[in-house]
C-alpha cells in the first residue's frame, strides 16, 4: 500500500493526471464568473410572496429611546409587518462571543445607525420608503467617539491584556539609545462588492432555511436558532459563495440573517434582507482604528534591547471579536523583529460607533505598524538605511529567537527570503539611484523601502482550530466533496478539491464541490484566520484516507492480496498484477456492499496560549513575505505614484500557485488601499462621512504599481506537517503594502538627508504626505 503522507505526496504525482496538488488550475467557478452564471444570494429566484426588509437606525451615537411611534410605518404602502425587539421569541442579543449586540435596540442605543426597528414590505423600495415615517423620540447621552477619549475615561469593551518578558523599563534605560513615538492608523471599510445579504425561507416544521452570504454558516445557524428559540437542528444555512468577505462577513452577517429569519418566522413568508451600500457602510463594523505608542532602547548598531508598546483599538459599541483582534495585534507588535525585554499592552476601547470586526489580518497589520514605525525611527536616528536596521533585528537562531509571548521561532526562512529579494529587486543599486536622483534637488523625490511580514497561522482561540469534511464516491467514480469552509473568492473550494484528487490519484474533473451547508458538515469554524485550506484540506484528506483504507481492505479480501499490493494511481486502482479503472473498482466495491461515504476531521496540533500568563505557542507556524516598493513623490502637492513593487512570498509548497499569487497580488492591493487612499472619517456627531464610494476611495486599476512583480518562494516546504506542506496565504500578503508606506516616508525623509522620520499616520493620502513633507521641511537637526 502506498500511503499518501503529506511529505511524500508530491513525489508520487503522475503526469497523466490533471489538476492535483500543485497544479495551476483556475478557480472552480471561473467560467461561471466570467459568463455571469455564478449565482449569489441576491440572484436567487424571487419566490412568490417574497418580502423585503429594511432597517431603521438610530440618528445619534448614544442615547435612550423615549418613544418609538411606528404607526405611520405600519400603514405605509406595501408594509406587511414592522419588527421591534418585543417581537423576538428567543435571545435578543446576537453577540457572537460576548453579549453586547442587541438584534434590535430595546432601550439604549450606542452607535449611529444601530438597528431600532425593521420594516418588512412587498418590495425593497416600499420597505425603504416606509422607514422614513417613523417617529423617534430620544434622550441623547454623552458619546465617546475616539480612542483618546476612551483611554482617558478607561472605557473598554473587554479588559486590557499584557504580555511581558523580563524588565523592559530597565532594558530601555540601560540601552545606548532611547526613542519613543506614536502612530495612529484609521480603520478600513470592507467594501465587499456584494453587500450583506440573507434570505430566510420558513419551513413546514417551523424551522428556517437560510441562504446567507456569510463566512460562518454555523454561527448564523446557532444565532438564528437561539433568537427564534428553536433547537439548532431546525435551522439550516447554505452558503454557495460570497461576493467578497475579507472578515466583514465573519460575525456581521449574522444579524442580517437573524432579521430575515425573524421576519420570515413572523410572516410565514420568505424574506430577503439586502443592505443598501450606504446602510452597509454605516451599520456594519470595519477594521479597527489603532493608536499605538512605543518606547524603545537600542544599541549603537540599532539592535533593539527593550521595548514598551501600547496598542489601543477603537472597538466600537460591543466586544464582537475585539478580544482576539487586539490579542493578534499584540502578537504581531514586533512583526519579524526580536523585541528584547518587552512589554506589550493591548486596550479594547469602547466608543459609541459601529462595532468593529474582523478584516484580513485581524489586528495583525495594526500591531505590525508599531514595529515598523519604531524601526524607521531607529534607522533615521542612527543614519542607517532602514533595511539594514530591519535585517539586524530579525529573529535569529540562538539568543534572539523567542517572541515576547514565549513562542520559539523555528522557521528562519525570512532572512534568506529578504536576501533573495534584495538581489532580485536590485535593492542596493536602486537605493544608490534614489540617492542620486534626490540629490539633484527638484520638486520630485524618490523613495524606496523593503518591509517584511511574519504572520502567525492559527486561530488564537484554540477550539476554533478544527474542521470537518464529507466525501462521497458515487458508482460512476465521480466524487462529491463538502467541507465546512466557505468560498469567498480565495479559491478554497478548488484547493481542497485538488487535495481530494491527489489523495485518490484521479483527475480533478472527477471531484465536485458543493455549497457549504450546516446539515452536511456541522459545528464548523468561520472561514477565517487564513486557515481555510489548512483546516478543511486536512479534514478532506482525512475523509479520503478513511475511504481508501476501506477500499484497500475490500481489495485485500476480494482479491486475496496484501495491502501493499493495492495502489491508487493515474485514475486507476492497481491490485496485484491487475489494474482497474477507478470507476470500475468503485462499482465493484459498491456491489460488494462497501460504504463509499466518509466524514473527515482535523484539529491543529501543537498549539496553545496561556492567556493568564501571556505566554505560549499560539501559532502552528508562521507565513513570511517581503516587498520592495519604489515611489515618486511630488513635494509641492504630496501626490505620488508607486513606480515599482517586487514581492517574494512564502506559501510553503503551494497547493495552487495561480490561486496563491492571486491572493498575494490582491492582498497587497487591499493593504495599499488601507495605507494610502481609504480614509474613514466620522464627524463630531458620530456620523460616518465616508459612507459611499464617492467619499471613500478604494484602489482601482490605475492605482496599482506601474511595474508589479510577484513571485513565490521556491523549494520552501512548510516545516510543519500541514496539508501537503503548504502555507496559508489569505491574510499575510495584506501587510506587504507596508513597503509603500515606508517608501513614502523614505522619499519624505530625503528632505532631511534621511536623519528624521516624519510622522505619517496611515492612510498616507496626498494631504497627509504633504503634511509630513511640511514637517520634514521644518525639521531642525
Amino acid at each position, binding site marked *: 500500500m502506498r500511503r499518501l503522507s503529506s511529505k511524500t505526496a508530491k513525489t508520487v504525482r503522475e503526469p497523466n493526471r490533471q489538476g492535483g496538488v500543485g497544479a495551476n488550475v483556475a478557480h472552480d467557478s471561473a467560467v461561471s464568473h466570467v459568463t455571469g452564471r455564478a449565482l449569489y444570494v441576491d440572484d436567487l429566484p424571487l419566490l412568490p410572496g417574497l418580502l423585503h426588509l429594511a432597517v431603521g437606525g438610530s440618528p445619534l451615537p448614544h442615547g435612550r429611546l423615549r418613544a418609538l411611534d411606528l404607526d405611520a410605518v405600519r400603514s405605509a404602502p406595501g408594509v406587511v409587518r414592522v419588527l421591534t425587539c418585543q417581537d423576538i421569541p428567543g435571545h435578543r442579543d446576537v453577540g457572537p462571543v460576548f453579549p453586547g449586540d442587541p438584534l434590535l435596540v430595546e432601550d439604549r442605543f450606542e452607535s449611529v445607525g444601530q438597528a431600532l426597528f425593521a420594516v418588512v414590505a412587498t418590495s425593497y423600495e416600499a420597505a425603504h420608503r416606509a422607514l422614513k415615517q417613523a417617529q423617534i423620540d430620544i434622550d441623547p447621552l454623552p458619546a465617546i467617539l475616539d480612542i483618546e477619549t476612551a483611554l482617558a475615561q478607561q472605557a473598554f469593551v473587554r479588559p486590557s491584556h499584557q504580555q511581558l518578558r523580563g524588565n523592559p523599563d530597565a532594558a530601555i534605560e540601560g540601552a545606548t539609545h532611547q526613542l519613543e513615538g506614536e502612530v495612529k492608523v484609521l480603520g478600513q471599510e470592507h467594501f465587499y462588492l456584494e453587500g450583506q445579504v440573507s434570505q430566510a425561507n420558513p419551513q413546514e416544521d417551523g424551522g428556517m432555511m437560510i441562504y446567507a452570504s456569510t463566512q460562518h454558516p454555523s454561527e448564523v445557524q446557532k444565532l438564528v436558532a437561539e433568537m427564534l428559540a428553536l433547537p439548532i437542528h431546525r435551522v439550516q444555512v447554505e452558503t454557495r459563495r460570497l*461576493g467578497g468577505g475579507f472578515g466583514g462577513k465573519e460575525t456581521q452577517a449574522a444579524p442580517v440573517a437573524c432579521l430575515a429569519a425573524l421576519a420570515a418566522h413572523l410572516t410565514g413568508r420568505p424574506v430577503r434582507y439586502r443592505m443598501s451600500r450606504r446602510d452597509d457602510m454605516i451599520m456594519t463594523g470595519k477594521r479597527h482604528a489603532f493608536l499605538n505608542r512605543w518606547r524603545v532602547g537600542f544599541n549603537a548598531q540599532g539592535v533593539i534591547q527593550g521595548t514598551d508598546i501600547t496598542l489601543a483599538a477603537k472597538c466600537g459599541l460591543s466586544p464582537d471579536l475585539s478580544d482576539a483582534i487586539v490579542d493578534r495585534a499584540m502578537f504581531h507588535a514586533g512583526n519579524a523583529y526580536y523585541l528584547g525585554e518587552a512589554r506589550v499592552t493591548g486596550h479594547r476601547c469602547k466608543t459609541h460607533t459601529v462595532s468593529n470586526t474582523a478584516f484580513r489580518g485581524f489586528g495583525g497589520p495594526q500591531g505590525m505598524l508599531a514595529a515598523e514605525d519604531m524601526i524607521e525611527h531607529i534607522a533615521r536616528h542612527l543614519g542607517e538605511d532602514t533595511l539594514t536596521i530591519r535585517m539586524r533585528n530579525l529573529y535569529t537562531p540562538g539568543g534572539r529567537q523567542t517572541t515576547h509571548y514565549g513562542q520559539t521561532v523555528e522557521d528562519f526562512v525570512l532572512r534568506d527570503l529578504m536576501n533573495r529579494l534584495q538581489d532580485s529587486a536590485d535593492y542596493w543599486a536602486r537605493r544608490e539611484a534614489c540617492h542620486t536622483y534626490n540629490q539633484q534637488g527638484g520638486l520630485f523625490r524618490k523613495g524606496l523601502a523593503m518591509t517584511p511580514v511574519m504572520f502567525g497561522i492559527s486561530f488564537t482561540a484554540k477550539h476554533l482550530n478544527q474542521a470537518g469534511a464529507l466525501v462521497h464516491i458515487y458508482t460512476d467514480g465521480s466524487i462529491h466533496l463538502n467541507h465546512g469552509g466557505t468560498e469567498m473568492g480565495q479559491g478554497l473550494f478548488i484547493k481542497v478539491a485538488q487535495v481530494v484528487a491527489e489523495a485518490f490519484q484521479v483527475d480533478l474533473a472527477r471531484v465536485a464541490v458543493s455549497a457549504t451547508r450546516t446539515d452536511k458538515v456541522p459545528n464548523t469554524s468561520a472561514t477565517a484566520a487564513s486557515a481555510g485550506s489548512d483546516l478543511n484540506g486536512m479534514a478532506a484528506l482525512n475523509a479520503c484516507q478513511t475511504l481508501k483504507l476501506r477500499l484497500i481492505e475490500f481489495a485485500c479480501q476480494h482479491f486475496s492480496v496484501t495491502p501493499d499490493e493495492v495502489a491508487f494511481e493515474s485514475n486507476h486502482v492497481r491490485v496485484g498484477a491487475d489494474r482497474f479503472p477507478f470507476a470500475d473498482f468503485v462499482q465493484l466495491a459498491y456491489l460488494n456492499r462497501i460504504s463509499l461515504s466518509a466524514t473527515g476531521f482535523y484539529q491543529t496540533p501543537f498549539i496553545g496560549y496561556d492567556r493568564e500568563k501571556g505566554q505560549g505557542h499560539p501559532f502552528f507556524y508562521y507565513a513570511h513575505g517581503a516587498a520592495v516598493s519604489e515611489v515618486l513623490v511630488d513635494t509641492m502637492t504630496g501626490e505620488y505614484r508607486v513606480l515599482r513593487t517586487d514581492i517574494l512570498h512564502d506559501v510553503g509548497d503551494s497547493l495552487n500557485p495561480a490561486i496563491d499569487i492571486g491572493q498575494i497580488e490582491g492582498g497587497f492591493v487591499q493593504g495599499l488601499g488601507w495605507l494610502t487612499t481609504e480614509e474613514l472619517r466620522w464627524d463630531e456627531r458620530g456620523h460616518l462621512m465616508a459612507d459611499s464610494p464617492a467619499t471613500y476611495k478604494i484602489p482601482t486599476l490605475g492605482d496599482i504599481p506601474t511595474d508589479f512583480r510577484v513571485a513565490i518562494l521556491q523549494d520552501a516546504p512548510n516545516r510543519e506537517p500541514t496539508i501537503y506542506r503548504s502555507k496559508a496565504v489569505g491574510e499575510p500578503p495584506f501587510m506587504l503594502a507596508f513597503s509603500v508606506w515606508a517608501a513614502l516616508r523614505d522619499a519624505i525623509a530625503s528632505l532631511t538627508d534621511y536623519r528624521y522620520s516624519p510622522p505619517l499616520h496611515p492612510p498616507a493620502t496626498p494631504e497627509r504626505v504633504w503634511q509630513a513633507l511640511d514637517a520634514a521641511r521644518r525639521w531642525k537637526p
Partner: protein
Amino acid sequence: MVTFTLNGIVHSLDVPDDTPLLWVIRDELKLKGTKFGCGMGLCGACTVHLNGQAIRSCITPVATINGQRLMTIEGLGTPEQPHPLQKAWVQHSVPQCGYCQSGQLMSASALLAANPHPTEAQIREAMSGNVCRCGTYPRILKAIQTVTNAMTGEEETL
C-alpha cells in the same frame, strides 16, 4: 411602455420610466449576471453596453434607453462560445470572488471594441471606474493585453 433590444431580443415592458435599468434587467428580465454594487454608478459592477458603449445600469432610468440596443454579460459570450476576453480571464485566473467581473468584462469589451490596441495607460484609464475589492487588477490588465496582443498577432499574419 419602453421598447429596447437586449442581447439581440426585442423587449417591450410596462415599467415606470424612472426604474433603474439594472432592476429591469435583473428583476423583470431575470438576467442575474449584471450585479448591484453601490447604486451610485461608482463601482462598475452593473456595467452593460448601450449601443456598444459601457454604461452604469444602476443609474440609468429605463425610459432613456427606449428604442436602443443593450447588451449584458449574457450576450457577450457563453461557456461554449466565450468572447476572447472571457477566455483570457479564465486563462489568467482573473476572478476571485467574481462579483465585479461581469462589469469588468463589459468595460473591457467596450474599450476593445472602440480601440482594439489600447496602450497600458489607456487600459488603466478606461478600467478605472470598475472597482475590484479582491484586487485582481494585475490580472485584468494582463488578460486585456493578452487579447490585444493576439489581435495584433492576427493582423500581422494577414
